[in-house]
């Protein structure tokens, strides 16, 4: 049984009373909800586990910088349910002075790398992430390039040679983490 976007949003509204819908045509008919960050990660657990939603897959996680708007950032979760074949977009506003969101790594494993990328590109911290370090850029990179106020022509400092044994930039664990 596949739900229409409106039916899905009605179900989600009963499950998560704090969620608001994105009004109007802005989402072009795709189901989108906006959540407060204090509702995370419990709300994401509910969306994953509830038999009517079953969003077992975090398809993608990213952020958008709305420079000049308050709150400035938005973290965007694209959820997909392989068993029920429906999608939902969850948006979480994040203020500029405290760019932090609770991590979703305990809910979906794909959040691990996706949150590292959002940190790398936007400087949004994911509280509780086990290994929050840059992923596309290198450790010495200064700034967060996808922020709208990152200067396009900015030069980066030269990086001295690194010794991976004496000063590793990656965690050195024994066995599974």
């Amino acid at each position, binding site marked *: 049984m596949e739900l229409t976007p409106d039916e899905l949003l009605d179900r989600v509204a009963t499950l998560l009373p704090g969620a608001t819908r994105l009004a109007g*045509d*802005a*989402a*072009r008919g*795709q189901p*989108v909800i906006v959540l407060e960050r204090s509702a995370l990660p419990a709300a994401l657990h509910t969306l994953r586990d509830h038999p009517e939603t079953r969003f*077992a*897959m*975090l*398809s*993608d996680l*990213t952020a*958008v*910088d709305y420079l000049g708007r308050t709150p400035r950032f938005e973290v*965007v979760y*694209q959820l*997909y349910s*392989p068993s029920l*074949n429906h*999608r939902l*977009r969850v948006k979480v506003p994040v203020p500029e002075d405290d760019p932090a969101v609770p991590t979703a790594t305990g809910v*979906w*494993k*794909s959040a*691990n*790398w*996706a949150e590292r*990328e959002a940190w790398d*590109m936007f400087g949004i911290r994911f509280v509780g992430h086990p290994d929050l370090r*840059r*992923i*596309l*850029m*290198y450790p010495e990179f200064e700034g967060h*390039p*996808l922020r709208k106020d990152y200067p*396009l022509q900015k030069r980066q400092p030269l990086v001295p040679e690194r010794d*991976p*044994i004496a000063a*590793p930039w*990656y*965690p*050195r*664990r*024994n*066995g*599974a*983490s």
Partner: protein
Amino acid sequence: MADTGEVMEIQMGPSHPASHGTIKFNLRLDGETIVDVDVEIGYLHRGFEKMCEQGTWNHCFPYADRLNYASPILNNVGFALAVEKLAGVTAPERCQYIRVIGGELSRVTDHLTCLGMGASELGAISVGFYMLEAREFLYDLVEAMTGARLTVTYCRLGGVMNDLPADMKERTAAALKQVRRIIADCDRLLSRNRIFVDRMVGIGALSREDAISYGLTGPLLRATGVPYDVRKAEPYLVYDRLDFSVPTGTSGDNYDRFMVRMAEMEQSMRIIEQALAGLPEGPIAITDPRYFLPPKREVYGSIEGLMNHFKLVIEGQKVPPGEVYVATEGGNGELGFYLVSDGSGRPYRVRVRPPSFYGMGALGEMLRGRMLADIVPTFGQINMIGGECDH
């Protein structure tokens, strides 16, 4: 493993002959057993998302080509569909068929690249060359369609740039005959080859739950038995009118990934044949002056055409404010574009969901506790394409 004590640290890459792609594995080894691995990506980061914010919507199409350069038309089509959804336009029927044909040609070249290179890294060099030969037949078709083998830039908002050549049906029939012959040869050489099977079976397996949780899609997910294919789950273009099946595996290991890709190539070729047979006549692009460039005759022959051209090139297409996420089935899985428009002629935010990024995210778990030599086939079957993974 516990009592030897000595852990050796090795950095494999970023330019290793057995990895087709620039990537580094920071390994901790006990003998040949992988105690831990940190997968380091980003060597091919070119700032795709930042670049897209600087130009107009049409400027993004060449960048989209260069995401997964083994299947450029699929990226082109995926991006075009996302922008069209945002703009509220639909491409004409003939264009949709052409996009299906081009996309499926690209899917076969993508799988041939992955399987051929993966096989030659395991020593089956001749299979690698045979598959490259098959790929050349398809690249000839792509060149006849688009004018370029790889950097096609074929789609536009609302259409495609060129119509198919008049003898496309005959050319395709001849090329697919050759490709089928070569794939059958490779299948006989490789699929039951003892050395190859020993390197693949049971290696790199993930459970169905883990695969979903890691966001794996495409052949990697289907090898675990989940029949998720965006072309079936949310049919776009004209895929709902075409008859094809979604091959799945059972164990989710490298061998099943290999077999799923082998079977998918045949399905893609069936799609191409059906789409060519059902190809309708008609225009290949919309004529909406807000979104599509006027024909050159009007640009040089009338002031309205010239102004229209000028406005579209300088200011860009004014896509109404809003946001969409549109997923299509790329060569490696769900290729999604999340676009935000603020109503100006430029994209406010372009986010690509690269399938192989999430595949690489799961690679550490596939490899931990395995042997050093298992990196090569497992990494090969993920089919990381640097341009896409690192965007």
